[in-house]
C-alpha cells in the first residue's frame, strides 16, 4: 500500500484554494439524498454535524453521553489560537504555521498545518457570531493571552472555560439543525463497529446504552470525531468515558492508525493522591503566564514552600529556557518536571510534584487581577486539594492529556477506507509529535466547520446515494460480531473487575510507554500487555446482562480495546528509534537533555495496518517533505 496524502501541488498558501477549486460539489437539490453519520459530538463532531446538516445533508449524530453538550472538548480551559494579530505583536498565518510545525517537532504535514493556520481566524468570527462570550477589553474588543510555544498573544479565551463556551456554541448550532429536521440525534448510543461494503465505509453498528439493543445505521459516508486515547494510561485528564473504541474498531476494519506513540503529557495537572484516583485534573497552561515553576534546590527539602528562601529555590524552567521561561512547550516542561522529581527534589506527598507559584504575580498585579484571570481554576484547585493557591503555591505534576496520533487521513481528512472521514483529536494530522496549547480547539473546529464540509462532497459526488441499506449482509455480520463480543464478556464471570484491569494497564503504560521510554521499557510493555490481555479474557467479571443499562459492560468493551491498542502504541514507540516532541526515547537525547530527532531515518508518518488478531501490524510510511520550512533543532532557550 502506498500512502497518498493527496496534498495539492503549488505554493503552500495556494494549496487549499486550489483543492477547493478542484473538488467536486454536490448540488443543493442532491444533498438531501445523501445520509452522513457523525460519531462523537465534541467540537469536531458537533461542528461537522451542524455544518453538514445546514448544507442540506441528512445527518445522524451519535454520542455515548446523555446529551451532545457533554463531549470532552467542554473541559478545555485556556483558550483557542487564531492568527488574527489583533494585538499588533507580529502574528500572521505564517507565524502560527511555523510555531505549530516547530512545536510539533517537525513531524506534521506542512500543507495541513498551513491550512489550519489560515482558517483559524474564521473560527473566531464564527464563534463570535454564535454568541460565544469571549473575553473583551473595556473598549469592547476581543482580548488575547499568551500560551506555551509562542512569542505572540494569539489565544482567545472565555474565562477558564473556553472549551465549554465553544462547545456550547457548536451544540447550539447542532440543536438548531435538529429542530430543522436535518440532524437526527442518538444520545446514549455507542458505536461498536464500522461497516464497510466493497471496501468503503457505509455505516456503523451501535449499542443503545439504555436498552442494550444492538442495531446498525447505513449511510453514504461516516465521520469519526471520537477524540483521543489518553485513557490507555487509565489516569489522564480525559473524561472517564473517553475511549479508543470507535477509532480502534475502524482500524480493525482497515483504516490505518498513524503515530500512536505520539502522546502528550501535560505539565500542569494536580498530582495523584492514591489508588482510588479515577482521573487527573488539569490546571490550564494559561496559569504559566503568571505562575513560576520551582522546586527546592536541595533534595528532600521538607520545609513549607513559604519557608524556603528565594536563594534556595530552583526556577528550573526559567533557568533552562530563559527565552520562553515558564511558557516552554508542554513536552519540554513535563520532562523538566520529571527530571527534578527523579533527582529527589519533588514536593508534596510521594515527591511527585513541583510548585507553580503566583506570589510574584499577586505582588505585581494584585490578588483581584489574578482572581479575575484564573479564579475558577484556583477554586477548582482548592476543591480538590483543600489548599488555597493565593496563599501557597499550587502543586502540579505532568499527566497524560492529549494524543497527537490517530487514524491516518489524507489532506481531505479521508482515511484509508474511502468514505470514512476522521476529524479532530481522532485523526493524526496537524500536531506532529507535540501539540501546542490552545490548538486542539482550533483544529477540532477547523475540521468540522471549514474542511470536511468541502471534502466530503468530493467523495459523495462520486457515489450513488442510498446504495446500501442496513439489511446488507455486511451489516448483519457486523451486528453478530458485536453481539458475540458482548456475550463473551458477560460469560467470563472471573474474579477481577474491569477497573482493576484498567488500573494495571494504566500503570504498565505509564511506567513503560510514558514520559521517558527506552528499548528495555518498551520491550517489557510488549511482553506484559499480551499477558494482561489474556488474563482479562479469562478473569474479568462483568455483572448484569447485555439487554439493560450496564455501565460495566460498556467499560469492559473499551478496556478490551485499550488492551490491544496499548500494544500497538508500544510497538510504534519501539520502532521510532528517535526522540521527537512528546515521544522521548532515553537513548536519544541532546547533551542538554532535549529530544534528539533523527530526520534521516524517521522523518515520516508511521501508519499501521491491522493484519488480524495476534498478528503483528504492518508498517507503512508516508514521508514528510518540508518545502517551506527548514528542518531545525527545536530551541526554546
Amino acid at each position, binding site marked *: 500500500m502506498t500512502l497518498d496524502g493527496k496534498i495539492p501541488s503549488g505554493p503552500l498558501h495556494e494549496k487549499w484554494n486550489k483543492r477547493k477549486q478542484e473538488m467536486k460539489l454536490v448540488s443543493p437539490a442532491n444533498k438531501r439524498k445523501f445520509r452522513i453519520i457523525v460519531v462523537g459530538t465534541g467540537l469536531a463532531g458537533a461542528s461537522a454535524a451542524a455544518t453538514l446538516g445546514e448544507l442540506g445533508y441528512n445527518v445522524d449524530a451519535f454520542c455515548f453521553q*446523555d446529551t451532545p453538550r457533554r463531549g470532552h472538548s467542554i473541559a478545555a480551559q485556556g483558550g483557542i489560537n487564531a492568527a488574527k494579530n489583533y494585538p499588533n505583536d507580529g502574528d500572521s498565518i505564517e507565524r502560527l504555521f511555523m510555531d505549530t510545525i516547530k512545536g510539533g517537532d517537525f513531524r506534521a504535514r506542512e500543507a495541513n498545518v498551513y491550512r489550519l493556520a489560515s482558517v483559524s*481566524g474564521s473560527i473566531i468570527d464564527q464563534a463570535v457570531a454564535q454568541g460565544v462570550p469571549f473575553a473583551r477589553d473595556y473598549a469592547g474588543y476581543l482580548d488575547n493571552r499568551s500560551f506555551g510555544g509562542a512569542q505572540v498573544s494569539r489565544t482567545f479565551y472565555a474565562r477558564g472555560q473556553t472549551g*465549554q463556551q465553544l462547545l456550547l456554541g457548536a*451544540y447550539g448550532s447542532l440543536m438548531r439543525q435538529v429542530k430543522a429536521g436535518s440532524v437526527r440525534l442518538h444520545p446514549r448510543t455507542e458505536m461498536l463497529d464500522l461497516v464497510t461494503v466493497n471496501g468503503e465505509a457505509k455505516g456503523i453498528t451501535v449499542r443503545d446504552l*439504555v436498552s442494550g439493543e444492538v442495531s446498525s445505521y447505513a449511510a453514504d459516508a461516516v465521520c469519526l470525531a471520537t477524540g483521543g486515547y489518553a485513557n490507555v494510561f487509565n489516569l489522564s485528564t480525559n473524561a472517564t468515558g473517553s475511549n479508543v473504541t470507535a477509532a480502534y474498531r475502524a482500524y480493525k476494519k482497515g483504516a490505518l492508525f498513524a503515530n500512536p506513540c505520539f502522546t502528550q503529557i501535560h505539565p500542569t495537572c494536580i498530582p495523584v493522591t492514591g489508588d482510588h484516583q479515577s482521573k487527573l485534573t488539569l490546571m490550564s497552561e494559561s496559569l504559566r503566564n503568571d505562575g513560576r515553576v520551582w522546586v527546592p534546590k536541595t533534595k528532600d527539602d521538607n520545609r513549607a514552600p513559604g519557608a524556603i528562601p528565594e536563594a534556595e529555590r530552583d526556577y528550573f524552567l526559567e533557568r533552562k529556557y530563559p527565552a520562553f521561561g515558564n511558557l516552554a512547550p508542554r513536552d519540554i516542561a513535563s520532562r523538566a518536571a520529571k527530571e527534578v522529581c527523579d533527582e529527589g527534589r519533588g514536593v508534596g506527598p510521594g515527591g511527585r510534584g513541583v510548585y507553580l507559584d503566583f506570589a510574584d504575580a499577586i505582588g505585581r498585579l494584585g490578588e483581584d487581577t489574578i482572581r479575575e484571570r484564573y479564579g475558577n481554576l484556583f477554586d477548582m484547585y482548592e476543591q480538590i486539594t483543600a489548599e488555597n493557591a493565593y496563599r501557597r503555591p499550587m502543586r502540579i505534576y505532568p499527566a497524560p492529556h492529549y494524543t497527537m496520533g490517530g487514524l491516518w487521513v489524507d489532506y481531505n481528512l479521508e482515511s484509508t477506507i474511502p468514505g470514512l472521514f476522521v476529524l479532530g483529536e481522532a485523526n493524526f494530522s496537524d500536531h506532529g509529535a507535540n501539540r501546542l496549547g490552545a490548538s486542539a480547539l482550533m483544529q477540532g473546529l477547523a475540521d468540522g466547520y471549514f474542511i470536511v464540509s468541502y471534502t466530503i462532497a468530493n467523495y459523495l459526488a462520486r457515489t450513488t446515494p442510498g446504495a446500501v441499506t442496513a439489511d446488507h449482509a455486511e451489516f448483519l455480520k457486523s451486528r453478530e460480531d458485536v453481539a458475540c463480543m458482548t456475550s463473551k464478556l458477560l460469560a467470563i464471570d472471573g474474579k477481577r*473487575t474491569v477497573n482493576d484491569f484498567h488500573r494495571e494497564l494504566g500503570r504498565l503504560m505509564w511506567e513503560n510507554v510514558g514520559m521517558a521510554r527506552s528499548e528495555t521499557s518498551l520491550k517489557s510493555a510488549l511482553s506484559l500487555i499480551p499477558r494482561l490481555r489474556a488474563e482479562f479474557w479469562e478473569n474479568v467479571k462483568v455483572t448484569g446482562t447485555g439487554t439493560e443499562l450496564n455501565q460495566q459492560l460498556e467499560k469492559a468493551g473499551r478496556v478490551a480495546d485499550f488492551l490491544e491498542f496499548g500494544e500497538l502504541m508500544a510497538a510504534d514507540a519501539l520502532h521510532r528509534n528517535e526522540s521527537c516532541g512528546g515521544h522521548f526515547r532515553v537513548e536519544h537525547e541532546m547533551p542538554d537533555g532535549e529530544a534528539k530527532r533523527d530526520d534521516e531515518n524517521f522523518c515520516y508518518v508511521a501508519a499501521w495496518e491491522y493484519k488480524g488478531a495476534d498478528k503483528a501490524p504492518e508498517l507503512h510510511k508516508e514521508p514528510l517533505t518540508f518545502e517551506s520550512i527548514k528542518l531545525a533543532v527545536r530551541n526554546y532557550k
Partner: protein
Amino acid sequence: MNLTLYVWRQKGPNDAGKLVRYEAKDITPDMSFLEMLDTVNEDLIKKGDDPIAFDHDCREGICGMCAQVVNGIPQGPQKKTTICQLHMRHFRNGDTIYIEPLRARAFPVIRDLVVDRGSLDKIIQSGGYISAHTGGVPDGNTILIPKDDADKAMDAAECIGCGACVAACPNGSAMLFTAAKVTQLAALPQGRTEAARRVCAMTEEMLSQGFGNCGNHYECQAACPKGIKVQFIAKLNREFIKAKLK
C-alpha cells in the same frame, strides 16, 4: 472513614425503586464523592451484585453529566460544587448519606441514579442559539461588546446543564436553565435579532416538556453548582413581557 449509605436502586423506569443500605469502608478524605461510589461498586461487583448506575464523565465539574441528590440536596451539600468535585473530607467517619436521583416530572429515572434529561435539549432546540450560518460571518471585532455585557453573558453562559436547578425547585421548573441561555444571548448585540422569538419559544417549550413555572423559591440558585443567579429569571421575565408587548 466508614460510612453508611442509603442509595436509590431502581431497575428501570417502570420499577418502583427503593433505598438500599450499603456500608462504604475505608474511604479516604482525598476521594471525590464519585470515587467513593466507585469503591462501593467494586465491592458489589466482586460479590456478583449489580453496581450502582450513575452518570459521570469529565469528573472535573464542567460536563454536567453527574448530578445526584445527596442528603436531599441536588449536587450535594457543598455550595457551588458538582458531585464529582465534592470531596469526602467534607464528611465524617460514621456519617449516614442518602443518595437519590434528580427527581422531576421532566426527568424520568432510567436506572438507579441515572435520569433522562433530554427535555433540556428540547428547550435549547426550540431557540437557545443564534441562527448564524457556518461561514460568511463578519470579523469578530466588528461587533464591539462592552466588557460588562460580555461578562454578564459569560456569567449566564457558565450553566453546565446538569438539571440540579430543576430537581431543587418545588415546581420542577427549568426556569433558571432557560433564563441563563436567554440572558446570555440577550446580553449580546448579535443575539438581539432573535431575542423576542427566542424567549417566547423557549418558555413555551419548557412548559410543554413538563417543567413547572417559577414560584420564586430560589432553591435553584442555592443548588446551582455554577452560581447561576435568579436575577436571570427576572431578565427572562422582562424579555418575555417585552416580546409579548411588541
